[in-house]
């Protein structure tokens, strides 16, 4: 490694901007009321394992109350409100998210472990933009191409993951509300805090009571919510395993279902690619958000003729990544979200070595406390290896090679998943040829991991069904 030109001084974001309560109760019918379950869990900062707050584990009775409140709000207020008025509430929420973005960014980093650079520059602006975008749809739905008189479905039961807590909340709540549905949302067990702060924002925006209800909890809470007979619509983002369980639970009930599940995205680099840009894209593809991204480019497919040139450049770039305090504004790689997830990443990475692939990580010191995993690149990976087939959901890249475009496409599609893919080439016709053949819902060519409220997102095959974002995303909430 060449000599460092300069050292970075610590540049931590102040956490004083966040005032945490000691305990968060479910937000139902416009109020935080003690959970009937009487159960609580502790949410911790994954970067140092310090407890942040107690959060209720909503039980069946709490879910019942929340669904009833959402039904009441749907029947009496929200579905009948003129679209323009509904939209104005969403505009208000978008503005408050912008105003309180620093507070939310720091809170998200504390609860999730992701670098504040990402929460500040990515999660928060995108969450606010999602509300702003959908606000404008509320009074224009007849023009969405979904029929002349699109109708809301009713009560939407929504369950979101821990990797982008507030952004996934925005992806769920903004389109549901814009289309006239009401919501009961369960945030993830390990990252409930930004959703609880969002509940306060609903109060601040004077959103009519019951339109949004937040029921924190774990798996059982989610099961109670998606299985509740009062829900008309179920929307879930998370693992494919839980997605199957939900699809089974919903089967035969007539509830509408959208699922955004796992992925094993292929990032294809052809021999004519702009290599420096490709290296940046590969790094963004797998190390953004510690690789806790369903659309991560976790399989690098590099054309054999340039593999020897590309891999040293990639490793040199990875050596420059800074892992550590997520609140430090220079940090690139934050903490793994939970002990359980760290265990899963370690197990799967372990199989990579056992099955014969070669692991490489930069020299990097891991903090003593908290949950950490170094950026890792596996070479010599075959398609049969578990690290090439299973979603690791961590900062672990599997490198495979190919000789012909046909082989690249065949390998890219050789997965039950179909969420994302990347193509790197300077040749337009080859890019379009490849993009056309990839069985994936999002194809990033000469870029990666770009998201936008106007751009539909969602999977093929076992990565789920339905789209979120854009005109297409509205369909999930209209009948």
């Amino acid at each position: 490694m060449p000599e460092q030109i300069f050292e970075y001084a610590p540049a931590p974001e102040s956490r004083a901007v966040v005032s945490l309560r000691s305990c968060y109760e479910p937000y139902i019918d416009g109020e935080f009321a003690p959970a009937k379950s009487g159960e609580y869990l502790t949410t911790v900062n994954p970067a140092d394992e310090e407890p942040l707050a107690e959060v209720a584990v909503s039980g069946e009775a709490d879910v019942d109350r929340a669904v009833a409140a959402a039904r009441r709000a749907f029947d009496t207020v929200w579905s009948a409100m003129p679209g323009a008025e509904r939209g104005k509430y969403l505009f208000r929420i978008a503005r408050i998210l912008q105003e309180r973005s620093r507070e939310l960014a720091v809170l998200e980093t504390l609860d999730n472990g992701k670098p504040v650079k990402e929460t500040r520059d990515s999660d928060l602006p995108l969450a606010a933009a999602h509300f702003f975008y959908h606000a404008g749809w509320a009074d224009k739905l007849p023009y969405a191409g979904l029929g002349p008189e699109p109708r809301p479905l009713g009560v939407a039961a929504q369950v979101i993951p821990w990797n982008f807590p507030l952004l996934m909340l925005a992806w769920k709540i903004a389109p549901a509300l814009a289309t006239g549905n009401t919501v009961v949302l369960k945030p993830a067990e390990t990252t409930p805090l930004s959703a609880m702060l969002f509940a306060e924002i609903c109060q601040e925006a004077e959103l009519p009571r019951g339109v949004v209800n937040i029921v924190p909890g774990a798996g059982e809470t989610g099961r109670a919510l998606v299985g509740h007979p009062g829900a008309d619509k179920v929307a879930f983002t998370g693992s494919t395993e839980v997605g199957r369980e939900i699809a089974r639970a919903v089967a035969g009930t007539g509830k509408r279902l959208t699922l955004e599940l796992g992925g094993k995205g292929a990032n294809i680099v052809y021999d004519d690619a702009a290599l420096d840009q490709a290296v940046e894209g590969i790094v963004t593809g797998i190390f953004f958000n510690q690789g806790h991204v369903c659309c991560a480019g976790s399989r690098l497919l590099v054309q054999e003729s340039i593999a020897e040139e590309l891999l040293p450049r990639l490793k040199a770039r990875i050596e420059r990544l800074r892992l550590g305090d997520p609140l430090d504004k220079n940090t690139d790689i934050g903490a793994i979200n939970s002990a359980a997830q760290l265990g899963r990443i370690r197990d799967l990475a372990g199989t990579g070595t056992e099955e014969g692939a070669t692991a490489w990580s930069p020299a990097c010191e891991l903090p003593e406390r908290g949950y950490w995993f170094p950026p890792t690149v596996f070479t010599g990976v075959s398609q049969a290896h578990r690290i090439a087939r299973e979603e690791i959901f961590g900062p672990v890249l599997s490198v495979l090679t190919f000789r012909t475009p046909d082989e690249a496409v065949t390998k890219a599609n050789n997965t039950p998943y179909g969420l994302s893919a990347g193509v790197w080439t300077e040749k337009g016709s080859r890019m379009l040829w490849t993009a056309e053949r990839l069985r994936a819902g999002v194809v990033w060519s000469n870029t990666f991991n770009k998201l936008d409220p106007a751009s539909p997102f969602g999977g093929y095959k076992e990565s789920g069904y339905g789209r979120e974002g854009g005109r297409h995303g509205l369909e999930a909430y209209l009948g």
Partner: protein
Amino acid sequence: MAESGKRAKGARGSAAERSEDAAGRLAVRKTYKLYLGGAFPRSESGRSYPVTSAKGDHLANAAAASRKDARDAVVAARAAFGGWSSRTGYNRGQILYRVAEMMEGRRAQFTAEIAAADGISRTRAESMVSAAIDRWVYYAGWTDKFIQVIGATNPVSGPYFNSSSPEPTGVVAVIAPPEAPLLGLVSVLAPVIATGNTAVVVASERAPLPAVTLAEVLATSDLPGGVVNILTGRLHELAPHLAAHADVNALDLTGAGELAAGLEEDAAQTLKRVLRPSGDIDWAADPGISWMTPFLEVKTVWHPIGV
């Protein structure tokens, strides 16, 4: 087979066959077979079942497809998917229109089969056949338009070209509606293949003969073998295998009746797209795009803009 006892009963044959009988000549009967990968095999199981008219007269023995036949059909549909989905919309439109042309030539046969199966007048049967032919024409016109209508160019907040296009889901298992053996069948099948999917169809168990005749039309319409595969037989035997099959991407439960909830659960394991229409369907109504969209995937492609 336990059912074979019923077969002796009743006069066999369509109106067309009877008229030949009247001329004093012994009619040459048709063997109703499966349609798999462009060929017309009998069931590998060697089984058949008797098909009767609305009045209870024996009409023919239809093949009773087995699980193996269903799996062979999925293999054929998967093999045909790459080629069919990459045809241009214009080309698929030409072929679907050709299907309408070929059906027109067999109008009398379809009319006789439907009149016998449903116990309806010749005039009523004829109007159903006309509607079925027109439905192929309708979807022939969609093949090069649905991408424009359903797709979009998305105005993202940055220097990126961003466009979304619908693509076919893949292999679709279609449970055809039992009550409308030709018009219903065409109404669920044509939208599936118009957009580039391939299909494995379970024909109306009660009235499978129009489906087999439709297969004979498809086989002579330049439709590549395997794009449509038609199984006749016992729905409760065939449907669960198709619903659980890992290489089937989507399931149309229009004709599944009381089996629908169980099949939907079977389909959850592989996260199939499931279409389960509710209520009675008016097959004469304008179908719009609602029968195409359940079997389309929206793909969004990003590319930076710059010099």
